[in-house]
């Protein structure tokens, strides 16, 4: 395999007295889909937020394309090629879909030496990209607030993909989605990965992870329980690791193996 595009080394993150991450190390390679699994509060979102420049790690090192990196804010990470679709959406309900789509990356057109927001281009691209994702907008000026949760999620993913990231981070992108949209998102992940982009995919759903994942890292209470490679682990084992072993086995027994 090639060199990892991003290496997270012994990342710790403390919020006051809360230790959200107690030294997590993960490597992500170009063209792989790296699934991050774990229970609620395991620290998954916190971990990817240190990757995308939202949080500064308390200690630990981030190496991006071989260079140690120190993101001051999300702009740096975006500029470096790390696009993130956050769990709590980075979408603004009062703004139109196309304004949201290009938020922070507005296309400009020069008129008489001054830069103006190129609304025509933004509207056209937004409509196209959304159609590719299987969502028909009423118009590019439709407010994001009128979209369903899944549709919003789709806009966010389409946006991240469109801006040609090297690393695409998706924090539980499928948790609010219906069957068709989930299939769409998983297909998109597959497509993106084949283009050589590294995908970090957070999910609670082992089936979704198994469908596209190349490697699986399980977090538990701020620590990694290890990384498994596709084919070397069964969905059941993964499920058990996520839930912390025995309890799940017991639960499964009492639920008649339906979980």
């Amino acid at each position: 395999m090639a060199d990892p595009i991003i290496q997270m080394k012994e990342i710790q993150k403390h919020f006051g007295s809360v230790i959200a991450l107690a030294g997590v190390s993960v490597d992500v390679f170009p063209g792989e889909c790296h699934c991050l699994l774990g229970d609620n509060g395991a620290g998954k979102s916190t971990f990817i937020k240190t990757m995308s420049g939202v949080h500064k790690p308390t200690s630990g090192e981030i190496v991006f394309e071989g260079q140690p990196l120190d993101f001051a804010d999300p702009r740096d990470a975006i500029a470096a090629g790390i696009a993130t679709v956050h769990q709590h959406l980075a979408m603004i309900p009062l703004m139109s879909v196309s304004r949201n789509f290009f938020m922070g990356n507005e296309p400009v057109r020069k008129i008489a030496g001054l830069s103006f927001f190129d609304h025509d281009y933004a509207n056209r691209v937004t409509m196209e990209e959304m159609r590719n994702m299987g969502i028909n907008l009423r118009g590019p000026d439709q407010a994001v607030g009128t979209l369903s949760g899944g549709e919003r999620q789709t806009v966010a993913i389409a946006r991240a993909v469109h801006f040609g990231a090297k690393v695409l981070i998706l924090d539980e992108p499928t948790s609010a989605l219906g069957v068709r949209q989930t299939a769409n998102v998983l297909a998109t992940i597959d497509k993106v990965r084949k283009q050589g982009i590294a995908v970090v995919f957070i999910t609670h759903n082992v089936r979704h992870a198994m469908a596209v994942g190349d490697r699986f890292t399980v977090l538990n209470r701020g620590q990694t329980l290890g990384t498994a490679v596709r084919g070397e682990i069964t969905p059941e084992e993964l499920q058990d690791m996520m839930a912390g072993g025995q309890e799940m086995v017991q639960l499964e027994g009492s639920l008649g193996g339906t979980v």
Partner: protein
Amino acid sequence: MADTTDERIKEISPLRRALIRPELGGMVGTVAVFTLFALFAFDSGMFNSQGVMNWSIVSAQFMIIAVGACLLMIAGEFDLSVGSMIGFAGMMIAVFGVVLAWPMWIAILITFVICCALGALNGWIVVRTGLPSFIVTLAFLFILRGFTIYIPQTVERKTIIGGIRDAAEGDWLAPIFGGKIGQPIFQWLGDMGVIGVFERGTRAGQPVVDGIPMLIVWAIALIIFGHILLTRTRFGNWIFAAGGDAEAARNSGVPVNKVKILMFMFTAFCATVFAVCQVMEFGSAGADRGLLKEFEAIIAVVIGGALLTGGYGSVIGAALGALIFGVVQQGLFFAGVESSLFRVFLGVILLFAVILNTYIRRIITGER
């Protein structure tokens, strides 16, 4: 799959589409106000050239501060220190230009620099501490007003400093705020009998309205600037984003803090423009100038369709709100209505505007 229409999407009615434009309330209100006064106060002199100039000037004053307040409110913040800033800026000009007798253009430029820096300080404290701008700027409301009273009392032993017009005589920058443009056109209009001319006295033969005050030019220029900035530039998108959801905007790489601080500075800039025009017109600076202006600006912006919670609004709407404000205030005066009723009107219309805006917000965001 990729058919272009979705059978589940109802064609939204043009009415509903129009409803979600932030300017709608302002437009309806403007038409209503003009219709009412045309019906009930047409003969009061409100619609002759002097009358029109009268309410235009008052409206332009409101517009200047409304543009700043509007962009700031869309960016998710308030500035309650606008009124005190107006008093303070006027006093600074008097202190530099009259007491210290510096050239007027230097006094004006330094005042702009000081006031924009104070705006930046307001903004910096708000973004650094995360305190509501309401509280931070309330503090500045008192701090600035206090200085505005203290300074003239200590240096001149009075609360009004005059002599600004004399000090501005022959200055190159002062006429940009206190001058008038278009005099030849108005003279010609007077000669043609379109507008009235003085019949007696030293100004006999001159038109009763002899030009457009720079105050109005500033108002129009600021409205055009604000509108284009908000709707046609990438910075405008950042303003909406910063006020819509600062966290989401930050995650998408919008420099939210910078946007907010710049908007506080712009609000201070607008307040200073107001103040300079005012001291040039009155020829003096008073410690009580600008009282309550912050609320009038905010009311104009809300009538213009902006949401108090940020992220939504329009500069054109705010300008129309200011126009309604000016026309009603002066119209009631022309119509001989007791002026205290203006406040009643203001309270009522504010309430209506806020209720309407909340309803519109629900339509846009699909909240229930």
